[in-house]
């Protein structure tokens, strides 16, 4: 299969030393195995995420994304932009849609961009890494590279919200998307069915309304446990962080004994493709995925 090239938009959380740095590590390893070339968009900026709505307003938010479009287009012409963070993908893609459907918004955006010496001709496609894997490579290709299938391991594929709604992966239902389960099975793992697959983790409310958010996270983890999952897998940095790092607090609050690793699909794939624990960024997991560490060591 010919090498595939993309303009890479890691986003704030997926930088070295940031909350999803292990996501970045595993994505890079995974892409090496799959012969995908990611070139970071030079000097990319924050997408604004969903949470900035109250302060940012309309135009400034779109302008921030537009800047990334312009940079990508100028420096990496003809390449699709690939985001690993669900919020980045959603924010960028929404801006693309809005700009392309409103001449006025586009005009104002160009005016603002000019201040940074930039301008937009055509906005590249905005893709999520999961889309790239499924649509550009396909499950068969993804399976072809498996060296060490994750046999006998049970995962709860936690899709969450923003890779799923409002855009979602083509051909998937909003209420019961299957792509993450398929990815898990592609690398030899078992995807357990459970009913919190697309329940919201609370997103940014994890910071502002922790008790609300943590109540939701509890439901998610509980359901994963009840259905026999040993680990949770997600495509979204915020989902990953929220579901992983608050387990201690939830245990305090509800007297539960949660201790379930929460991983990225890219971590599983890296391991299945023969990568080391380090390649997969397992050291970046707050709740250690011991079973996987042992598996990687074998």
């Amino acid at each position, binding site marked *: 299969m010919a090498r595939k090239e993309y303009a890479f938009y890691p986003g*704030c*959380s997926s*930088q070295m*030393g*940031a*909350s999803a*740095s*292990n996501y970045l590590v595993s994505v890079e390893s995974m892409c090496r195995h799959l012969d995908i070339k990611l070139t970071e968009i030079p*000097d*990319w*900026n*924050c997408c*604004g*995420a*969903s*949470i*900035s*709505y*109250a*302060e*940012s*307003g*309309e*135009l*400034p938010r779109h*302008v*921030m994304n537009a800047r990334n479009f312009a940079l990508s287009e100028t420096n990496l012409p003809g390449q699709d932009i690939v985001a690993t963070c669900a919020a980045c993908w959603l924010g960028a893609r929404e801006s693309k849609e809005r700009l392309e459907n409103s001449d*006025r918004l586009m005009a*104002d*955006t160009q*005016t*603002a*961009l*000019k*201040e*940074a*010496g*930039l301008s937009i001709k055509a906005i590249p496609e905005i893709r999520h890494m999961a889309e790239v894997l499924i649509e550009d490579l396909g499950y068969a290709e993804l399976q072809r590279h498996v060296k060490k299938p994750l046999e006998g391991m049970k995962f709860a594929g936690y899709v969450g*919200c*923003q890779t799923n*709604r*409002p855009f979602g992966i083509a051909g998937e239902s909003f209420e019961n998307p299957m792509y993450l389960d398929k990815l898990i099975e592609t690398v030899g793992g078992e995807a357990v069915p459970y009913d919190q697959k697309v*329940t*919201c983790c*609370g*997103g*940014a*409310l994890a*910071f*502002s*309304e922790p008790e*609300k958010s943590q*109540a939701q996270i509890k439901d998610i983890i509980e359901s994963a446990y009840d259905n026999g999952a040993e680990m949770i897998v997600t495509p979204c940095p915020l989902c990953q962080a929220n579901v992983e*790092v*608050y387990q*201690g*607090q939830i245990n305090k609050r509800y007297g539960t004994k949660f201790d379930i690793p929460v991983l990225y699909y890219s971590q599983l794939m890296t391991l299945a493709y023969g990568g080391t624990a380090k390649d997969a960024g397992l050291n*970046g*997991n*707050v709740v250690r995925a011991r079973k996987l560490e042992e598996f990687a060591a074998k």
Partner: protein
Amino acid sequence: MSDLNQQMAERYKNNFLKEIEEQAEMGEWVKMCMQCGLCSGSCPTHFHSGWDHPPQEIFMLIRAGKREEVLNSNGMYMCTSCYNCYVRCPRKVPVTHVMHGIAEYAYKMGRAAKAQPTMHLSKVFWTNATKYGRVNEVQLTQSLYFKDGLAAGIKKGLEMKDVALGLVKAKRLNPLEALGIGHKCKDLDGIHRMLAKAYELEAQRKGRDTSKA
């Protein structure tokens, strides 16, 4: 009442729907709601106590011209941006964005008490993100903790120390960021000029005279 708020209240007299349609992002969708309640029922936070009006009710209040009740509502800030309502709405109303739009407008009208944590987060997040062009997670969390003053901040910090330590151990939190060292864009000036222009244009587009505000 902020001056801007006065401006708007006067301009739109008793036509609050029109005010929302012109001022709030996606506000033009409010009229399309048929009051089926699917959005409210689909909202993950609707099961929790403590919020006054769900989306479909906010829409009805707007149509009923209840400006104060809507602008002072905390309903909009309960949105987790999960987009359940958005994809289910039988009238294809982009509920999530409409709620964000109303929230932004209420906030710009000087409503929703500083205490409203999500609104505060929104403000902090955007300021933080635009200051360096990228989010500085440490400063972000700090400013969240200390919003209620130093003592509360430290207390919160201690509550959260396990979480923080875990992240630090996992190299997913860089304490140095506290000093502003770490992630930032190169062309910060460009970004700030660009944003300044954007704010200016936005004010023009919405006919908001921000000079007084």
